[in-house]
């Protein structure tokens, strides 16, 4: 469990905080709040009840604190007592933390208030205690009696962080010119205080800069297996080796928070909903109702209308599908399908590292160490790790993490660091996991006639290969990065890359929580740093790249030529032929049935395609005629469809028609047909209620041909979208 935490933020709201110093667009307070909100929202995002935060305003117009009877404590307001922060607290704070008209207020007094808050709440309990003071140090600070405060901070084990607006920080490299004397003096007081109580003293600019570096959340390691690693069978042979090990995750994908589905509450009107969408968080009641999904179940029943009948959930029991057969397994037989196993990790054998293929890796990697507190196991494991390393080998093991869990095959790879040794393990595939797709070789071409060619348009010639070799070698990232000392290091090592989606989503949620009406902030640079090659590297190698592009001679296929007329018919525009090159088109033309140009409903799709392919009629009368025929056939299928039995064919015909029409630049042929079809569907002319067919048209994306798809179309995207809706 995470440690309990208590943090008090002291935010200077004095009049001088309203200034826009050093040409910044924001006021000093807004600038400081960037930091405060970032920290506070990060706390809120954890959702932990044991992570407490409090906020004290310094140099506020009013006074409200536990020591307010003392005039030293004037203009200090406790905006937020220490507690878990939730949305309402954030909303209140964003109203509280504004620039005041006040010039005075003692930062040290505010510190005392904060110490008091922590002492009251945390008592002597186990807490990580922290005070963050953010100020421009422009007000008078009473510097006597600091030693008792230092002592209290140390005794209570409070971490003090002081961040100053434009404080001097030589290490960071900032010095404010023309600083006023009070500020310089105060800075010195606060710096000494921090040093005395072991705190952190810094300039705000640095803190804000560091914020752009995404924070990586650390997770406490939980073992996924604790038990024996064996070589040989200790149950039957006395020559078996068993080592006590623990297995922990090494890689675990951190997922961004997921959005839930909501709907505007029934008592709000739709127009309100549209405008209130983003401001919903402003009101105490966010006006949203959760969306649940209600499930209903149907079984086939020949006697029921539509061939299906609803059944109650209570009437159902669990089972499996074997093909399309239902297999019922009664409650008592539930575990009959479980393959009985006992937890174990058994070495099956050893493999050669050089011959291992990385694509076999199936799942997230884990690491295995000897059981802690078991020195001998750790030593034995170390022997195995070193032996594998020295032999350039990996082990293959069978792992069952828990009783009756399915066995998995693992690759065990040695890892030796000066202070750490372990085995990394990665799951390997089983026979069933391999799909045997075959692809032609890439370094030679075997022709249809059986010849093997090494010169072919699909193979790189010498120029291309040389250019590629040079490009790959020159675009080397292994020494392109620079470390803090300016030494050449690996560019984009994994521990400096951050999940763009994860941090982006977190960023916008936190932003929206504080600024409900503002647009989301731009994506921070670091998240997309690796989306393109480093500009400098490209510039250095532009000539190499140019040579490669020239040798590659890659040509984009123009979008129009991608259709079947060109793609399927071959590059020279001829119709497809069988392997023997038999002229089937001639045979088709000779077929008496087909020469009538009437589509046979049973063979509608092939004949439609053939009709279009052989049509040489420039006026497209034949094409139009074919479309009308196909439309009639589609309507008939729908009319005679029992339930949804004819939908599949109708959808297929629509798809084929849409694809073919796209090649003819005659979008209206399809669009007109679809409009008519929709009319018939909605009017119930096609054998009753066929609205569910329209749903199929929509999910299969067979809507109107849009202008964005084909220039000749008159239909805009919005119109096409509207058209698909059934009102």
């Amino acid at each position, binding site marked *: 469990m995470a440690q309990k935490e208590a943090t008090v933020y002291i935010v200077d709201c004095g009049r001088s905080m309203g200034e826009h110093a050093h040409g910044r667009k924001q006021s000093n307070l807004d600038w400081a709040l960037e930091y405060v909100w970032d920290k506070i929202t990060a706390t809120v995002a954890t959702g932990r009840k044991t992570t407490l935060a409090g906020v004290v305003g310094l140099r506020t117009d009013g006074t409200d604190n536990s020591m307010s009877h003392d005039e030293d404590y004037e203009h200090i307001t406790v905006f937020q007592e220490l507690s878990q922060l939730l949305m309402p607290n954030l909303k209140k704070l964003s109203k509280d933390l504004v620039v005041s008209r006040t010039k005075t207020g003692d930062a040290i007094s505010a510190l005392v208030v904060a110490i008091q808050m922590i002492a009251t709440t945390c008592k002597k309990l186990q807490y990580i205690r922290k005070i963050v003071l953010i100020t421009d140090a422009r007000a008078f600070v009473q510097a006597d009696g600091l030693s008792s405060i230092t002592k209290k901070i140390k005794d209570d084990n409070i971490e003090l962080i002081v961040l100053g607006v434009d404080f001097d920080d030589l290490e960071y490299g900032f010095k404010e010119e023309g600083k006023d004397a009070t500020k310089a003096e105060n800075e010195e007081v606060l710096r000494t205080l921090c040093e005395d109580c072991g705190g952190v003293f810094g300039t705000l600019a640095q803190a804000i800069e560091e914020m752009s570096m995404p924070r990586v959340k650390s997770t406490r390691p939980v073992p996924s297996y604790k038990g024996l690693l064996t070589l040989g069978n200790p149950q039957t042979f006395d020559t078996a080796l068993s080592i*006590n090990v623990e297995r922990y995750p090494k890689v675990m994908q951190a997922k961004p928070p997921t959005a839930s589905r909501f709907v505007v509450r029934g008592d709000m009107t739709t127009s309100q909903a549209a405008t209130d969408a983003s401001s919903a968080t402003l009101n105490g009641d966010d006006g949203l109702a959760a969306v649940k999904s209600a499930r209903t179940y149907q079984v086939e029943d020949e006697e029921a209308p539509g061939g299906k009948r609803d059944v109650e959930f209570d009437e159902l029991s669990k089972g499996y599908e074997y093909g399309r057969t239902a297999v019922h397994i009664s409650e008592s037989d539930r575990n009959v399908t479980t393959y009985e196993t006992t937890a174990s990790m058994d070495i099956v054998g050893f493999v050669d590292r050089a011959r291992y293929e990385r694509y076999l890796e199936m799942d997230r990697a884990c690491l295995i160490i000897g059981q802690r507190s078991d020195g001998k196991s750790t030593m034995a494991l170390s022997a195995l790790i070193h032996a594998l390393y020295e032999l350039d080998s990996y082990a293959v093991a069978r792992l069952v993490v828990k009783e009756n869990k399915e066995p998995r095959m693992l690759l065990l790879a040695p890892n030796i660091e000066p202070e750490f040794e372990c085995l990394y393990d990665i799951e390997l595939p089983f026979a069933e996991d391999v799909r045997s797709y075959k692809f032609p070789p890439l370094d030679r071409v075997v022709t249809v006639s059986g010849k093997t060619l090494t010169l072919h348009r699909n193979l790189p010639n010498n120029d291309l290969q040389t250019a590629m070799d040079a490009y790959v070698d020159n675009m080397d990232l292994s020494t392109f990065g620079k470390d803090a000392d300016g030494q050449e290091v690996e560019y984009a090592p994994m521990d400096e890359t951050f999940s763009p989606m994860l941090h982006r989503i977190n960023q916008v949620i936190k932003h929206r929580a504080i600024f409900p009406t503002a647009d989301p902030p731009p994506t921070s640079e670091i998240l997309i740093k690796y989306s393109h090659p480093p500009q400098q590297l490209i510039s250095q190698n532009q000539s190499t790249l140019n040579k490669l592009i020239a040798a590659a001679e890659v040509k984009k296929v123009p979008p129009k030529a991608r259709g079947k007329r060109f793609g399927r018919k071959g590059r020279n525009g001829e119709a497809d032929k069988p392997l023997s090159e038999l002229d089937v088109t001639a045979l088709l033309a000779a077929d008496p049935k087909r020469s009538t140009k009437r589509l046979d409903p049973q063979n509608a799709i092939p004949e439609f395609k053939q009709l279009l392919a052989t049509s040489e009629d420039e006026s497209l009368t034949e094409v139009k005629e074919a479309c009308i025929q196909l439309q009639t056939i589609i309507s008939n299928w729908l009319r005679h469809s029992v339930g949804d039995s004819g939908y599949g064919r109708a959808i297929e015909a629509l798809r084929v028609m849409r694809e073919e029409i796209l090649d003819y630049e005659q979008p209206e042929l399809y669009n007109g047909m679809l409009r008519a079809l929709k009319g018939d569907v909605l009017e119930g002319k096609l054998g009753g209620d066929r609205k569910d067919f329209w749903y199929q048209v929509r999910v299969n994306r067979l809507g109107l041909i849009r202008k964005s798809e084909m220039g000749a179309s008159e239909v805009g995207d919005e119109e096409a979208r509207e058209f698909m809706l059934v009102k």
Partner: protein
Amino acid sequence: MADLPYRDKMADNSNRAAEEEEDEEDEVVDESGYKTVKDAVLFAIDVSKSMLTTPEDADPKKPDTGLSPTIAALKCAYSLMQQRIISNPNDMMGILLFGTKKSKFQEGDDETGKTGLQYPHCYLLTDLDVPAAADVKHLRNLVNDEGEATDLLRASDQEVSMANVLFCANQIFTTKAPNFSSRRLFLVTDNDSPHATNRDARNSAAVRAKDLYDLGVTIELFPISHPDRGYTFDRSKFYDDIVYSAIPSDPDAPAPLTTDIKAANASAKDGISLLQALLSSVASRAAPRRALFSSVPFEIGPGLKISVKGFILLKRQEPKRTSYIYLPPDSEKPQIAVGSSTLMAEDTARSVEKVEIRKAFKFGGETVSFTEDELSKIRNFGDPVLRIIGFKPLSMLPIWANYKHNTFIYPSEEDFVGSTRVFSALQQKLLKSQKFGLAWFIPRRNAVPTLAAVYAGAERISDAGDQVMPPGLWIKPLPFADDIREPPAEIDLIKASDDCIDKMRVVVQQLQLPKAVYDPQRYPNPSLQWFYRILQALALEEDLPEQPEDKTLPRWKQIHKRAGQYVVEFGEVLDKAFARWQKDSGRSGAPGVNGGAKRSQPFGASGSAPKRVKKEGDEDAGISDEDMRAAFTKNALSSFTVAHLKTWLQGKGLSTTGKKQDLIDVVTGWFETKRDA
């Protein structure tokens, strides 16, 4: 529109297969929803006199070799059907016999009312559909039961019209598998020249074959030769007019690998039976090749884009999830209940349209909401792309940098002409220089962007000359800093001494796997096999099978024989080394390793977990076996804490779930069975 709820079932139909391939986190399924990503295979098996003749030179010891070609083909279909129920549970399969005396077509063909008369000598044995248990059973009976076989498997005296066979197949595909992205006709025959003297009949067949081609049906031919009769199947006589190449007519075009199927021999001269030969040719084409993505440009450098397709070659096959079953009160036959869901507002229980839905995140006890538009802008990191940003040596790709299966990519000329040669140059360079490309990868619109390693895979050919692994590039999504976990803190590093390592090295050298590689084909998934065996037995109402051989288990005996002695030696050296270490470091460690000979009592009797000595200050040490046994005999197990019980159970590899009483039950059970043993 309120009367048109969103139905899972329908979305399922079009997207289920696609979704299997998709990452669950991606909410948007793009272009893949366009066509049903399902496969339908129709076996067309020739039942001629020649196909029904058993080979004369059959080896009596190998019953497989005595099968007639038709029976071998049926067996092959039977095995494929069982296999596809496991691997492609949503795909369809059917079996059509042709050249039979009997004729039969779909029952209840309501549209035309036509009967089998339309397709004489075509017998539709199994209609094209997702196989049912009854289909499997029927087929099994047919291949095993001579009686039924002789009745049905009788060759017609008349020659069957191939045009009819093909049109019959056309009708089956048209009505039963409309809008499928993959429809394939597996044609098994030993007759290379049907209608040898009838040109018109041959032409009609060619026309019907073109129809199938235009319908999008691929014909896969499985030809059979009879070397014992001096007969070799010649495709050029007839079938080259029927079968289409996927690639346009160009004599220099690369041959699609699928046409390299050699004619299988009906006799077993070379030791491979016809059945085996058929099984392996069918297996090589059993899986329809489905691209995971095909419109992602591969940007090798700024200004150099090529087109590639992505495929999943390796993917964990999981047992089927449970479904809801309806048991009608008046019938024995359980039915599958198909669920559909309607979205409802929680407050008023009214049904909700998709357009009304807002996405909101839970934050600080409330919700922070965004409009659909805002959210899609936020999630948008640009168009789908695989963009190389530079190259690194493979040594900079640590072995642990993996969290999901890798994706295979292969060039396509679809969007960019010349893609293949550029891809080939890159693949060969990466292979030669042992480098990988670091790439920014967005597989689909609005998908989560990742950094990925693009590395080369060489073509692997089996001893028999078949391709086992295709050549190409692989995409390995890399973990971000956020995904990398730290090892637990406070680990004592106790390094093994050199003499220990030397002894262990000998052990490792003794136990190399064949060819020193991991071959997945040698390791069927035991849980998955067991699951489907049981399911099949239940579905076909057979007896439950015996526990099968688990090929993933180590070869204990061999390990003992080959390495046992060295393990014992290692144990001895380790004992000494550890004693030395304890002395040097002034610590007493718990003896945790059992190196063979050192043990005073056999492992099994006292339990396989090592004994642990409770040390002062070592809270983690838990309960020793002795203490636990003592408590068990005194019936005082409940005196231990749940944490202690769990630790002890975990050490034994036992279940640690449930309440305290459950844990105590497990412990009790363990001691009880141990005492028996």
